[in-house]
């Protein structure tokens, strides 16, 4: 394996991009990712916050204390991962992280790994999805993605500009990849439209350093509130209004998540309404 320190965006072609490395390095070690070429992109990805634009190379640790950042995102960063991981991990990388589904991490031949079943559906799924879980029951672990989704974030890549929700897709038999980036395409910047108020609430089983059981972000623009959830579907989940949880399709051992989500959604909506 070779490591290239990129000085221009073209050098990424054909290799795996590495920024903070908090996801790429463990996945390489487990053989879930394989490559002959790693490309360190820290030199070419924008870093820092300028107005409503956030460089994809900005670390979560930088964002959690940045007063320019909307409340929901700041709180999502603050409650994400551990201090060291926040110091290392970039916001762009955070959006691209993989599920914590134990079957996937332990390389069970599941749908996402190209196999023919979802082991979690019939097996141990108490931390899994309550929406869109018929093909793959994994839960998307990014707090930050839920916050950005609620905030209506636009993503600028090396090739295009898109809404954050279009960065993700639900896996199908034909296409099992959860993100829509083309090979070599990199996230450069995130553009956050102004909001009047926002909040992120997170249920976890430790007070710190835990992935979301349920994360709820809400952002209000005038009388309109957008709600997005982490940890409830294979991708970050935009909730169709306060009653959107009625459409949940929990598995036997994830029904509790619906109850938790209801409470947090109620609180989040109340909170942004009052701000």
């Amino acid at each position, binding site marked *: *394996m*070779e*490591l290239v320190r990129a000085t221009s965006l073209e050098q990424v072609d054909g290799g795996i991009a*590495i920024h903070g*490395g*908090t996801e790429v*390095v*463990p996945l*390489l*070690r487990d053989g879930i990712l394989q490559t002959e070429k*790693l490309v*360190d992109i*820290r030199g070419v990805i924008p870093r820092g916050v300028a107005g409503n634009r956030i460089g994809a190379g900005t670390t979560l*640790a930088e964002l959690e204390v940045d007063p320019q950042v909307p409340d929901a995102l700041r709180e999502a960063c*603050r409650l994400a*991962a*551990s*201090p*060291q*991981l926040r*110091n*290392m991990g970039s916001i762009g990388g955070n959006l691209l992280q993989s599920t914590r589904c134990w079957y996937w991490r332990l390389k069970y031949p599941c749908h996402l790994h190209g196999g023919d079943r979802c082991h979690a559906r019939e097996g141990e799924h108490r931390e899994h999805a309550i929406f869109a879980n018929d093909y793959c029951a994994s839960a998307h672990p990014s707090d930050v993605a839920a916050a950005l989704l609620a905030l209506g974030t636009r993503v600028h890549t090396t090739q295009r500009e898109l809404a954050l929700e279009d960065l993700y897709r639900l896996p199908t038999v034909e296409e099992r990849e959860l993100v829509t980036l083309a090979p070599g395409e990199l996230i450069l910047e995130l553009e956050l439209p102004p909001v009047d108020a926002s909040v992120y609430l997170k249920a976890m089983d*430790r*007070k*710190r*350093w835990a992935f979301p059981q349920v994360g709820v972000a809400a952002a209000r623009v005038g009388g309109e509130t957008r709600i997005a959830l982490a940890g409830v579907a294979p991708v970050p989940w935009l909730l169709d209004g306060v009653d959107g949880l009625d459409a949940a399709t929990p598995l036997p051992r994830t029904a509790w998540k619906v109850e938790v989500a209801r409470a947090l959604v109620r609180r989040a909506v109340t909170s942004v309404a009052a701000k």
Partner: protein
Amino acid sequence: MSDVLLTVNGQSYSAYAPVGMSLAQLLREELGFTGTKIACNEGHCGACTVQIDGVPVLSCITLAHNVTGEITTIEGLRDHPLIEAFVEADAVQCGFCTPGQVVSAAALVAATPDPTVDQIRHQMAGNICRCGTYPRIEEAIQKWRG
């Protein structure tokens, strides 16, 4: 295999190692800095914490070849007042996580010399201690200046 050039605790080191080797492994096995511990080797426990340019990171999931900044390990913090504070507060049981705790704590007090309890708990939450010395660690950090 390729060369790695590192600055560790203010001194320059070079090693010859395969790309993909973690900073933790290189520090421990090639350079002899065994104060940095490996307990999970996948970025979950904090035992391997070192500072790069003063910022705590997990050396077990940092690629040695990808380090550009200056590294500080526990060996570079042996005279830090936190050591005495940890000893006095009885913040050391089995001690396997302790070097990582001290490295994290040193960065915390450098940025925030008088951290509140909430700040300590927020910034130290990535260092797992199975013996449960946490109340003592909290006390040690509060009293680090003696």
